[in-house]
């Protein structure tokens, strides 16, 4: 049977969706993958390289099982950066919060700005993963794991900052509803308590989502580790739960993934909305605004997607995964980033223009005070909005890996500064003019914040060595349910959808 016949018959039968005619009379899925079309479909950049599944497994598990000397040097360097941060933290804990630059009226400084930044970073992973799973976007497959892991680790880092910020770490358990003789009980009327609940629940949900997604790949890694006699087999055996990929397991697993995707999609926006309410529920000029909820959520997704792209490009280069995480995926993520950049810019101007036009004295004083921070705002505007929108509009830019790497770093620099500008200047000009002052982070704060970045990278580096970083089962499923057919002089990818 010729390929043209296949195309015609599949079109008649509705390969991409319908179920008509005699199913067994249709051509097999393998027959669609005609070598002839390979040359024609170069523009797809998503070639059919996964025929040999064993080779694919070995290739994608390579970052896990083989470690170079430079990896150890890199993690050691990260360990040193973390150690200096830990040193500063211990010093601050003993000496007191005076070591940080926060003082009246700026009680929330760089620690809280960094907390908001890390919570924001966590938002893309699971949201993007959930949306792409639910919409069955085929290009999602190789990037899911890295994005979901990013969410979990960002939250783990974010969760440290309220503890660092409150100073008296030993009283952190006051937030937990534990019956005690002293009748200590959390006050659920406080948005800070909502935040505590939301972040912990989001962390639980994200970790669960990450683990459930890992399950089939853990089984593959388990088999590989057992065959190699590798030490990882001990924990992989336990964590894989005895998965063997039966039809029933897959069916139940897919349903469970669907439930989790929907639930995570409901949790994630609520978390950053609640973080925004830490600010918006106060009566502070510049914070008390209804736009903060969606503005924070969009900002979070924005910085998160930028971080996913940065991470993908890094993984591509460091672990030679350029045939798994392809330019095509970065291009698709770039388009998504472009859309979010436009929405975020809209919110940014909405917030500005309402204050500017109403010109309420207490609000305007806060805004006017921002004037001398113009370079920061310029950075936010360039990194966060104008430059990003301009650059991402060009396909050539989106497929240039160094350019995308630099741009996404710039986006996150811009977003960090934006969070800083939300937290600090507003408190500097709060209510009583006799209290007005400025704030600059101290070396203690800078040291701890730098260590938090090292901690995030460290967690990621460890994760890569313990678990498969590529969503192997999803990639394989993508190959199973799709194929290339020739349509005239073009190759067209078709996908089976249920």
């Amino acid at each position, binding site marked *: 049977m010729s390929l043209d016949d296949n195309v015609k018959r599949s079109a008649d039968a509705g390969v991409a969706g319908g179920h008509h005619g005699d199913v067994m009379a249709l051509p097999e899925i393998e027959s669609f993958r005609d070598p002839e079309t390979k040359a024609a479909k170069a523009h797809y950049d998503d070639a059919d390289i996964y025929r040999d599944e064993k080779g694919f497994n070995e290739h994608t598990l390579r970052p896990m099982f083989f470690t170079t000397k430079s990896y150890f040097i890199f993690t050691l360097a990260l360990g040193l950066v973390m150690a200096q941060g830990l040193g500063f933290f211990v010093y601050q804990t003993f000496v007191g919060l005076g070591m940080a630059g926060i003082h009246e009226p700026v009680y929330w400084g760089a620690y809280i700005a960094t907390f908001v930044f890390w919570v924001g970073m966590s938002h893309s992973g699971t949201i993007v993963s959930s949306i792409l799973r639910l919409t069955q976007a085929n290009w999602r497959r190789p990037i899911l794991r890295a994005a979901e892991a990013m969410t979990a680790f960002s939250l783990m880092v974010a969760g440290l900052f309220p503890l660092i910020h409150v100073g008296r770490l030993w009283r952190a358990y006051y937030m937990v509803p534990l019956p005690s003789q002293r009748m200590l009980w959390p006050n659920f009327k406080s948005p800070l308590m909502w935040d505590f609940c939301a972040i912990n629940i989001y962390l639980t949900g994200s970790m*669960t989502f990450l683990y459930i997604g890992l399950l089939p790949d853990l*089984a593959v890694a388990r088999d590989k580790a057992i065959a190699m006699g590798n030490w990882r087999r001990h924990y992989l055996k336990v964590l894989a739960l005895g998965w063997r990929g039966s039809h029933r*397991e*897959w069916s139940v697993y897919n349903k469970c993934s669907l*439930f989790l995707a929907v639930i995570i999609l409901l949790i994630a926006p609520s978390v950053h909305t609640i973080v925004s309410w830490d600010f918006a529920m106060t009566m502070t000029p510049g914070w008390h605004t209804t736009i903060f909820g969606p503005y924070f959520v969009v900002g979070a997704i924005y910085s998160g997607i930028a971080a996913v792209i940065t991470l993908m490009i890094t993984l591509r280069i460091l672990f030679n995964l350029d045939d798994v995480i392809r330019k095509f995926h970065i291009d698709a993520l770039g388009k998504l980033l472009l859309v979010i950049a436009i929405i975020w810019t809209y919110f940014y101007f909405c917030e500005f223009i309402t204050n500017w036009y109403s010109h309420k004295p207490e609000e305007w004083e806060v805004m006017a005070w921002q004037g001398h921070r113009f370079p920061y705002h310029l950075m936010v505007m360039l990194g966060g909005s104008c430059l990003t929108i301009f650059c991402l509009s060009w396909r050539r830019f989106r497929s240039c890996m160094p350019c995308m790497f630099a741009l996404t770093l710039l986006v996150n620099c811009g977003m960090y500064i934006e969070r800083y500008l939300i937290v600090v200047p507003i408190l500097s000009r709060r209510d009583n003019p006799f209290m007005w002052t400025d704030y600059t982070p101290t070396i203690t704060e800078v040291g701890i914040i730098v260590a938090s970045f090292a901690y995030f990278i460290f967690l990621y580096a460890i994760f890569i060595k313990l678990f498969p970083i590529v969503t192997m089962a999803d990639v394989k499923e993508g190959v199973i349910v799709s194929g290339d057919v020739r349509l005239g002089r073009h190759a067209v990818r078709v996908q089976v959808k249920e």
Partner: protein
Amino acid sequence: MSDHYTVLGLYRKVETITKAGDPIREAFGVKDGDIEVLSSAAYPDGALLDDKELLHQVESRQFLFPFLMGFVGFGAGVILAGGTGYIMNLIVGGKSPFTYAPTGVITYEFTLLFGVIGSVLSLLYYAGLPNWTDRAYDPEVADGALGLLVKVYSKEDQEKAAKIMEDYGAYKIKKGVNDF
């Protein structure tokens, strides 16, 4: 004395394994739950094995787990946030001790948390996990082989099933006892 015997046949192609399923079912009158296909990736329901009816029964009950657990979470949220207001009542200007906004927020979050737990429980319960016992399996499945696994109740049937699998293109056969 053993309860059942298993045969696991490994195949390389989708087409071959789908052809082998029906003769085995016909030869031994194998029920839906006694035949399985092992694969390293998810195939659309019914593509490898005609057990859609059985899976449909499972799926139609599976959603109950997150749904019911969500209800439990809803109750926990109301009791925790709303109940705190009643038990540790701060009297402020005649306002109700029950605070709607905080209770709503906490209840929402707890409903979803319990929904997550329910989803995981549904997976564990219906997929029969965790199961760390030695079950019929071959590591080649992880490398792309497709496994047809059948449960039969006599040694003779086990041999016959193995023969049918071989005839229908299985490149490797594994036999076991009580390890379905």
